[in-house]
């Protein structure tokens, strides 16, 4: 197909500009993480005066990064596991059954994602504080409270996307499983789950990313012992001196797992969005 000259020129210009815009902070992050401290104290420089891996070692002792890291891993993995299981069950019901309130359920779940987080932050804070006092189960300032909160954050999108995936699985598969005597649960586990694996993986990565990157609730609901990376990373900046090279090194390290997971599964995100949008 031939196209006008100006279109190819515009393509090159616009895409180059967007590439530079996207790359700028990524370049700052990567290059600053291998700079000695002196390089980030003065004027910005494009190249490190000498390459060093010190920031990647020092960052662990400037703030208790290891504890934040462990907290984030535990909270995100737990939120991901529960969220995926809960989403699978819901999506199965929405995709395979007709029942009263189906529309209302989908609408409610989707709309909770649109509500201002600040609206339920204050009451949730009060509820957790008081539940902790009443029952002794520590929800405020603990990882458990965060897990419960975060697992609901990824639910709406996960249910929506998995419903789209499940809908695309032919019902004849269910029916032949039922002929073999499988109940609803067995059909779900033996027929639907293996077929929908790519979608489930994408949803799992999405849930993990959501929990890993959440800031608002982490800033209120965590104490010193349960602090996650989202709040902990600011520790480099609040002390009277900012170790920018260590901040960048830590940012890089905490980004790699989620970026790698997302990019590996990006194809399935697009497929899931398409499946959801077609409905």
């Amino acid at each position, binding site marked *: *197909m031939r*196209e006008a000259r100006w279109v190819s020129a515009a*393509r090159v210009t*616009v*895409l180059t500009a*967007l*590439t530079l815009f*996207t*790359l*700028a*902070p990524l370049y*700052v992050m990567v290059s600053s993480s291998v700079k000695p401290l002196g390089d*980030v104290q*003065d*004027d*910005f420089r494009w190249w490190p005066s000498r390459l060093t891996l010190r920031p990647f070692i020092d960052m662990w002792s400037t703030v208790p990064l290891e504890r934040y890291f462990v907290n984030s891993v535990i909270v995100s993995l737990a939120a991901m596991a529960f969220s995926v299981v*809960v*989403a699978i*069950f*819901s999506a*199965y*019901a*929405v995709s395979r*059954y007709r029942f009263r309130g189906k529309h209302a*359920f989908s609408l409610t*779940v989707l709309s909770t994602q649109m*509500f*201002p987080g*600040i*609206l*339920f*932050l*204050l009451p*949730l804070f*009060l*509820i957790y504080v008081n539940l902790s006092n009443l029952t002794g189960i520590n929800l405020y300032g603990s990882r458990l409270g965060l897990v419960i*909160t975060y697992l*609901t954050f990824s639910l709406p999108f996960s*249910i929506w996307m998995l419903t789209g995936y499940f809908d695309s699985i032919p*019902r004849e598969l269910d*029916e032949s499983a039922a*002929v073999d*005597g499988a109940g609803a649960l067995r059909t779900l586990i033996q027929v639907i789950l293996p077929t929908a694996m790519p979608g489930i993986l994408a949803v799992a990565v999405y849930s993990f*990313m959501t929990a890993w*990157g959440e*800031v*608002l609730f982490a800033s209120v609901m965590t104490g010193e012992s349960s602090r996650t990376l989202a709040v902990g*990373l*600011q520790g480099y*900046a609040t002390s009277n001196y900012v170790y*920018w090279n260590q901040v*960048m090194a830590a*940012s890089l390290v905490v*980004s790699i797992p989620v970026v790698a997971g*997302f990019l590996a599964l990006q194809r399935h*995100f*697009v497929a899931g969005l*398409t499946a959801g*949008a*077609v409905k």
Partner: protein
Amino acid sequence: MTTTAPKTPTVEADAVRPPQRPRMLSRSARRTLTPYAFLLPALVMELLVHIVPMAVGVWISFRSLTQFYIRRWSEAPFTGLDNYRVALDWSGPTGAELMHSLLVTVIYTVCTVGLSWLFGLTAGVLLQKRFHGRNVMRTLFLTPYALPAYAAVITWSFLLQRDQGMLNHILVDQLHLTDDRPFWLIGDNSLWSLIMVAVWRTWPFALLCITAGLQPIPQELYEAAEMDGAGFLLQVRSITLPLLAPVNRVLILVLVLWTFNDFSTPYVLFGGSAPHAADLISMHIYESSFITWNFGLGSAMSVLLLLFLLVVTVVYWIAVNRRRRDA
């Protein structure tokens, strides 16, 4: 559909396998209840984390819930609409600040969503044609969306530092556009910095959705238009945009709501306290609630924010659907 046969396949199964225990429920009752059983975990979690707290939030907004009552909030005295009156009194300091914050948030949302959508659409359309390196570019563009908010935004805050930042190095030291180094994170510039960072984080999602929406458009449509002599812009206007309309309708609404409620970007960019010029509403309510510990007032503001967003959503939805019918 699975609901065609009254003789469900489980009939044969049960006939072969004798029931081990007396059935508590008839088969049809079980069939009716099964979907609810599957939904139960999601319902419980939604109730605990969203629905009940929201109801409690509305309840609190009618009380004078200050720091004395945090640990026994049920005893906080009922004060009727007092909190709302304070929040909506634009001649008082609290109301004026809230109004200012709302205005800033509207500017922030319009600019961020507008630019993000424009970038996403332009890149999506320009990336439709196959060329060498297209997939690498797509992957690169999606990276900001995958990065954890705090890691990306903290990098931006370094880039925007007055003395050590990359932006001033380019503008002042290399291009000599101005002599004194501007501040980007305090003062009036802070809103534009915030919008730039938000666009950087948001537009990949627009690109992702628009790419998904472009995929089902058949190539033949463009070829036919080309045969009729339609240029690139006419093709975009007469084929791409109309066929993308369903995606755009939802995408723009979602972006508006997310951007309006954004907290992470300003919180991390400004290190916990926003400058006046960039005092977004979520930050504003957060700060006024946790600095003064006046949760009653904070909740009233949150409820007002929710009502505002509901009105915006309903008006938007009616407007878009009317346009669709007229078209």
